């Protein structure tokens, strides 16, 4: 059961068919295309029967760890359970068959979905308007930074610099860069949060914005956020909040109330849409009133029955085809409707309770570099351990548990960033704690054993160095190998 299936291309035999489609016979027509523009075949493209396809992917599917199969405490990723009813809803033909250029009066259901989702996101975050266009968190960041830049340009000067704390996710500096800013990294304080005095030290008229993740990637609430916002605003700068960790805050606090000018959310995290092995996501961007005029098209009007607006005089311009990842939005709205008003807070509370329970149970065993109160996740370090974070992660695989996020945030040595989410039971948390204890005991008595883990996975430790040194990025027919 454990061997990797042969590749499609190795299984392929010319003459096999996996599909059946009946086209209408069409009378002979004129030749419209120059023959030299046409292709004959597609060299080595696979040919398989339907049963072979089914087995190929069924067997591949069994090689994946997934939220549906077990615990997945990947910090910063909020790998919560994705309700199945949302899949049923997102598969309704009226949604899947709708063309994005359909005249608006024929797709009022779809537009209503986007309108309702936006309204709920506004309510949850306290922001004044949302764009649902961005395809993922990083895309939302880019959009948000463009919004800031356009707004500042309108005020006369786009400025040059964006401040990013050293604990930030890599997408933050990258996004700021692609919005044309220079990134200046600033240090978080000893208790893991950004100190107002640190900000002030870096604040001058060149600073366009601060990108702040809140709760930050250490799981700590940036408790000076109001003060930071004030300092920024007094300097004519803006506060961007990376809302990827909103799972800790929904129903608890609204970034809009705290002074945030713009934020993105990750529907594929906080709002329970499945991550699909790496996407698709959806990264809506919420803004305060002063940024609303700059939102990308299409903008969904608040009043029922009307179509989206495309002509927005001060817009940053379109950033994504059509409306964004609509079928992801459908799932997120379904999830929000399932939670309802009180469910939001229940979710955040349980997420935070679970993370704190892990923290409490593991802090006897592992170094906790920051002592501050944490919310939805907790970051330990491998300081003082006989094995590395990577080794522990790989050994966890043998216990049937997906490892936490490793080596991030960068400010923690050998970071183990653990986010259980609210959809894990106490029994699962205890199993995880027990596994960690056992691994640490194993590491004391036989560090090499742990270093060579995993043993019980479909494949054992993979050679990532070889993959990068001698890149093999596609199958090639044997002759040419």
């Amino acid at each position, binding site marked *: 059961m454990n061997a990797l299936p042969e590749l499609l291309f190795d299984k392929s035999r010319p003459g096999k068919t996996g599909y059946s489609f009946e086209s209408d016979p069409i009378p002979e027509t004129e030749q419209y295309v120059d023959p030299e523009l046409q292709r004959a075949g597609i060299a080595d493209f696979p040919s398989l029967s339907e049963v072979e*396809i089914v087995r190929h992917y069924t067997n591949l599917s069994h090689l994946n760890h997934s939220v549906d199969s077990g615990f997945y405490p990947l910090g910063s990723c909020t790998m919560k359970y994705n309700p199945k009813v949302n899949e049923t809803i997102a598969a309704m*033909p009226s949604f899947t068959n709708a063309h994005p250029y359909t005249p608006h009066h024929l797709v009022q259901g779809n537009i209503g979905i986007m309108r309702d989702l936006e309204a709920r996101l506004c309510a949850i975050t306290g922001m004044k308007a949302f764009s649902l266009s961005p395809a993922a968190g990083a*895309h939302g960041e880019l959009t948000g930074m463009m919004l800031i830049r356009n707004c500042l340009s309108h005020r006369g000067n786009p400025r040059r610099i964006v401040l990013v704390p050293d604990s930030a996710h890599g997408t933050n500096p990258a996004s700021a860069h692609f919005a044309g800013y220079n990134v200046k990294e600033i240090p978080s304080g000893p208790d893991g949060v950004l100190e107002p005095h640190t900000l002030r030290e870096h604040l001058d008229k060149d600073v366009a914005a601060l990108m702040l993740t809140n709760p930050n990637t250490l799981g700590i609430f940036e408790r000076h956020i109001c003060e930071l916002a004030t300092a920024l605003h007094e300097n004519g700068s803006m506060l961007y909040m990376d809302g990827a960790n909103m799972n800790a805050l929904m129903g608890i606090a609204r970034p809009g109330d705290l002074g945030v000018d713009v934020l993105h959310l990750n529907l594929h995290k906080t709002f329970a849409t499945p991550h699909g092995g790496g*996407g698709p996501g959806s990264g809506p961007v919420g803004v305060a009133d002063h940024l609303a005029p700059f939102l990308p098209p299409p903008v969904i009007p608040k009043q029922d029955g009307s179509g989206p607006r495309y002509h927005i005089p001060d817009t940053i311009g379109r950033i994504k085809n059509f409306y964004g990842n609509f079928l992801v939005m459908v799932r997120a709205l379904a999830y929000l409707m399932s939670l309802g008003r009180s469910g939001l807070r229940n979710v955040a509370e349980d997420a935070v309770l679970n993370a704190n329970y892990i923290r409490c149970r593991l802090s006897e065993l592992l170094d906790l570099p920051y002592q501050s109160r944490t919310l939805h996740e907790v970051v330990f370090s491998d300081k003082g351990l006989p094995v590395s974070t990577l080794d522990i992660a790989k050994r966890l695989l043998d216990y049937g548990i997906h490892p936490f996020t490793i080596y991030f945030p960068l400010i923690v040595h050998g970071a183990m960033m653990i986010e259980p989410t609210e959809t894990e039971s106490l029994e699962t948390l205890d199993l995880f704690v027990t596994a960690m204890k056992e691994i640490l005991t194993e590491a004391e008595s036989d560090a090499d054993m742990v270093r060579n883990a995993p043993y019980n996975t479909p494949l054992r430790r993979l050679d990532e160095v070889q993959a990068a040194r001698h890149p093999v990025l596609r199958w090639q027919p044997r002759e040419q190998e």
Partner: protein
Amino acid sequence: MRFLPLTDADRESMRRCLGIKDTADLFADIPERFRFPTLSEIPEALGENRLLERFRELAASNRHDEYLPFLGAGAYRHFIPEVVAHLSAKGEFLTPYTPYQPEVSQGSLQAIFEYQTMITQLTGMDISNASLYDGGTAAAEALLLMQRKSRRPRILVAESLHPEYREIIQSYIQNLDIQVETVSMDPSTGRVDLEKLKATLNSETGGFIFQSPNFFGVIEESSAIAKLTHSVDAYSAQIVAEAMSLAFLKPPGEHGVDLVAGEAQSFGLPLGFGGPYLGFMATKAEFLRQLPGRIVGETVDVENRRGYVLTLSTREQHIKRERATSNICTNQAWCAVRSAMYMATMGHDGLISIARANHTNTAYFADRVRTLPNIELAFPRNFFNEVVVRVKNRQVDDLLSHLESHRILGGIPLHWFYPEFADCLLINITEMHRKSEIDRLINAMGGML
């Protein structure tokens, strides 16, 4: 709450472990005056039965399914074998994260490696990444890639590139040190005006980005374009918004273009009101270190067994931060896997025959529309499955309303994007259209003109 496995007893014992009375204490860092907003605008929870009812109502308030559609323009209605829906719905593909731990992610990784391979086979390129957001952002990434690689400040863009893609490019570069210039089309063929291209290319030009089949459905002269750009040591990037055309047309690689990017929604993804779709990018090997997005590579495990990993991540944001080749993190992995399932199911013969059916049906429409008075093909040759018709002495919106009254969505009026084409309609015909449906469109058109 069915999504919350903690019981009240669990919560209580966990709070004891933490030494707190109330879970609310965990949020003490949050400024008190902002803590626990009431959120009265948000309705209370719906039970699963009411939730389904509500969405069935929303679905029913869409009316598009009563209409015969001829809408394309970057989003195409194609046949999707049911096996694709069943396999891609498997929770094991739907609910993992990005495969950071390859030992327990070989399912997604091998599937993406196979996806990358099929994309290179279709495009005739050396390498492919693991996906990008969509066609429009893929075009923008292609532009940035050419600029990075060429280190030249100026990139040319064809006027016949999908207008939304051009808008996205404009947004992406607005704050960067890149100049974008538009190369206009030849109004008689609908193709890039090669003379103009030649005249615009210079040693400051990093590349030229064009679409084929282009927004008007017309197949560009990729070979000539590639040659022209190479003559000034610039790159050429062919955008493909209708991936199905790849199974009908000579692969861009054979034309000599350096880079192919675009939208692969046609390969097994439903229209879905515009997303999620599947951006793809395939290039010559020399672009490898500059490629945006994830890449899956083959390697071995410690027992020397074949396996797959995410590779070359030194290009990426989590390593390179602001110097990364792009800011992309979450991509469209599941869409890529699903499209691989689609491509594998259709297989070599299936994909080619479906692509041919697209063209044959469109050619039949072309044959017939030419017999109508007061209407003509704006660009009468070298289309794949999309054509522009020009309506003489008529506002195209009148025609569209007339067709709508016949329960037909007749196409996309070009004036949405090109005011100068106020009398033109972009019509898409795929393998899904029956002959009788094409006849219905023709007859309805004929009735009006």
